[in-house]
């Protein structure tokens, strides 16, 4: 074992020499530790996978037959010279920050995270460390989320308005995590919740592993839209306005994403409405999460890296930008969050 840093940033992803493993690698490796099941973190082709028990079912659903092992939150495991444990990141159900300790020095790779408790994901837990790797998807002071309950009120008011005027409400959101979080925010008294196939497939996986979700009806080709007056349909954004959606007749469409905080993006992306709901930390969330780790060395990735790292440096931290294969600022990528 060399005296170099415990985690290094390679062209395959984050690498730990002491334990000879990678975290969220984007090229095939022998041993991959995965923070969560989103496609840009959990990729196919690795020889072995390690993820939380709660994250595995979705990964298996998406990646097929993988050689994967589960681990409980907080459970410590020795991998070579490194002591490894997974801790809730609050991003989506099953998501984790990965803590790596070698010779008393602690690094945390936080993956994607948010600090607000969404009532569905295991709530974010701050982990004391010396070196903290943070995302910065929304690392600008213009991003400040309102409390989830406030947004839920707006969302339900919109849905109720659609229902009252005889329109079907179409709500576009990422199929894993965001869609289920929205389901828990919706008021079932307004009407039935219908789901696109991609959303319902994830629902099935999550229900099977014991995560309670509100009742939904799969909006397949066989159902008759007129049997579901006042319905809200949850769908990946790509299906908004599609032939499948048009079958429902009079409708309004909305999009739920942190990017909806920006009027320009909202006008470009949203149909009729944009709701500001993100599974990533906002500016205040990022800063409080970093502060709570007590870390002095911060590695900034995914997002407004240059700006965010410069700000942290001014705050007296030793912050540096870590290149990733995926640039942040992905306001127009459908699976941005």
């Amino acid at each position: 074992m060399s005296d170099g840093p415990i985690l290094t940033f390679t062209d395959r992803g984050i690498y730990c020499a002491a334990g000879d493993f990678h975290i969220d690698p984007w090229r095939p490796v022998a041993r991959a530790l995965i923070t969560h099941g989103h496609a840009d973190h959990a990729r196919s082709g690795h020889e072995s996978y390690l993820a939380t028990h709660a994250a595995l079912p979705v990964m298996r659903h998406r990646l097929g037959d993988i050689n994967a092992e589960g681990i409980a939150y907080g459970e410590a495991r020795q991998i070579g010279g490194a002591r490894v444990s997974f801790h809730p990141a609050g991003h989506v159900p099953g998501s984790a920050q990965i803590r790596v300790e070698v010779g008393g020095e602690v690094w945390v790779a936080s993956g994607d995270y948010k600090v607000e408790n969404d009532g569905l994901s295991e709530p974010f837990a701050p982990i004391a460390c010396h070196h903290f790797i943070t995302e910065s998807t929304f690392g600008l002071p213009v991003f400040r989320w309102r409390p989830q309950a406030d947004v839920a009120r707006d969302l339900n008011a919109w849905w109720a308005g659609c229902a009252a005027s005889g329109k079907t409400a179409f709500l576009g959101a990422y199929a894993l995590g965001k869609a289920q979080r929205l389901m828990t925010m919706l008021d079932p008294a307004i009407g039935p919740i219908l789901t696109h196939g991609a959303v319902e497939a994830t629902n099935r996986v999550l229900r099977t592993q014991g995560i309670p979700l509100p009742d939904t009806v799969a909006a397949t080709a066989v159902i008759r839209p007129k049997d579901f007056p006042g319905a809200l349909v949850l769908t990946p954004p790509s299906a908004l306005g599609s032939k499948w959606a048009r079958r429902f007749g009079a409708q309004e469409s909305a999009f739920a994403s942190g990017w909806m905080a920006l009027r320009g993006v909202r006008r470009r992306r949203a149909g009729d409405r944009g709701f500001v709901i993100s599974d990533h930390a906002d500016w205040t969330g990022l800063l409080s999460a970093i502060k709570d780790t007590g870390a002095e060395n911060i590695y900034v990735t995914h997002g407004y890296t240059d700006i965010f790292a410069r700000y942290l440096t001014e705050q007296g931290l030793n912050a540096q930008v870590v290149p990733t294969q995926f640039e942040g600022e992905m306001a127009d990528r459908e699976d941005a969050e």
Partner: protein
Amino acid sequence: MNRFADLFTAIDQSTKTTVKVAALAAYFKEAPEEDRIWTIALFSGRRPKRAVTTTRLREWAAEAAGIPLWLFEESYPIVGDLAETIALVLPPGTRANDKPLHHWIAELRALGPLDDAARKDFVLGAWAQLGGTQRFVFNKLITGGFRVGVSQKLMTRALARATDRDEAELAHRLMGNWHPDDTTWHALIEADDASADASRPYPFYLAHALDDGPEPLGPPSDWRAEWKWDGIRGQLILRGGAHFVWSRGEELMTDRFPELARAVDFLPDGTVLDGELLVWRAGDDDPQSFNALQKRIGRKTVPKKLLADAPVVLHAYDLLEWRGEDMRATPFSDRRALLEHACADLPPDAPLRLSPQLDFADWDALAQHRADARDVQAEGVMLKRAASPYLSGRKKGDWWKWKLDPLTIDAVMIYAQAGHGRRANLFTDFTFAVWNGPDLVPFTKAYSGLTDDEFRQITAWVRKNTLQRFGPVRQVTPHHVFEIAFEGIQASPRHKSGVALRFPRMSRWRQDKPLAEANTLDDLNDMLRIYG
């Protein structure tokens, strides 16, 4: 201001015209009259004088948000709107204050004589009291420019619905030189003598582009043709012994074109002409290019030398009012006959000329005229239906512009900058270069012509291929070739390349074209020789 902010939200949230009109109509029925008139003013580009500089606003916003100024400045281009950036970085407001819109405007205007400290107190106080959208709207009142997807036409329709008045009449009432300070809701919208204002222009009728040639228009004998001049559309009004010149953008330009004052010597009072302002030197066969006119546009007072070098003449092509009578319902062929009669005895030194009609027996003959348009500095030909009245706005069917195909050149993108408003966070503003030996020489910028999807693709590419940043501008790896279309080319000592283009835009993303095969500076210079 909650009512106005709610109106703004309703309009901004919807892409549907019916929803916007309904929201506006309800507002025009319910809001206080002083608010209504300010709303009409704001949505038609009349705004209160700027009371605070944007530099101060940025500094105060950063301070109030507790962030360094550089961080504010970095955030601004990502949000793409200053008023919005400020509203977003500040801590949540209380929404405790619901003074009406006109009240806020009055307070803002009262800031004029105050010093910076007092202005700052007022602005910080407003920010603390106002909630999200109210705060954004307040900032917009200061920074100006309410671009919310409400056209004059849409607002007029809503007013017509709210007041049960005729849309065309309202459109005319809203034209011209009014300001909320010196009129009232009653005087502007309801009073009988609304046409008393001698300077009031008629709404312009705008042509549609004829993309597929004139054959579908029916028999050529139903139509009249003219050159499509490359100047400024203008309306000359002679009433009450005075003259007024309006641009199509509803700007009063009387003082910019003093030579038109002599028009009162040649035409009777109660005359309104529609035509094109062109720089045309005495004795020349053709007008000067738009470039020459551009020197005149920016000048509110014109130096003698410029007046002599670049004299402006109105080429009249329509007669909207004659001897005080509104002629717009009369067929074009009759208006034209009257116009020719009115212009029959103009001396050569008059600042007015009749824009000639083009003879054509069939569409092929007209196509031949069109092909010659560049020779007379025209952009193509106009077609007007002989029997048509003078409508308002861009109504399809009676007026068509049949423009020349643009000139094109294949160029390399070398710089990119993020857009504003709806295009915030997307790279949409590009600088293009052509080869000069081994070097790339920048020669134009272009912003439009790509689809949203193409802008998204190129944005992702720019992020991964940035070589250097200069503030909001990124230098990118020379790689992508675009076909740039433009209407004209002029020598320009101010540009490194030595040329300036008219209306440059991206006509195609040449993903098929290798970098080395983009055009050269020599190619540009050849075009300058032929078309310049």
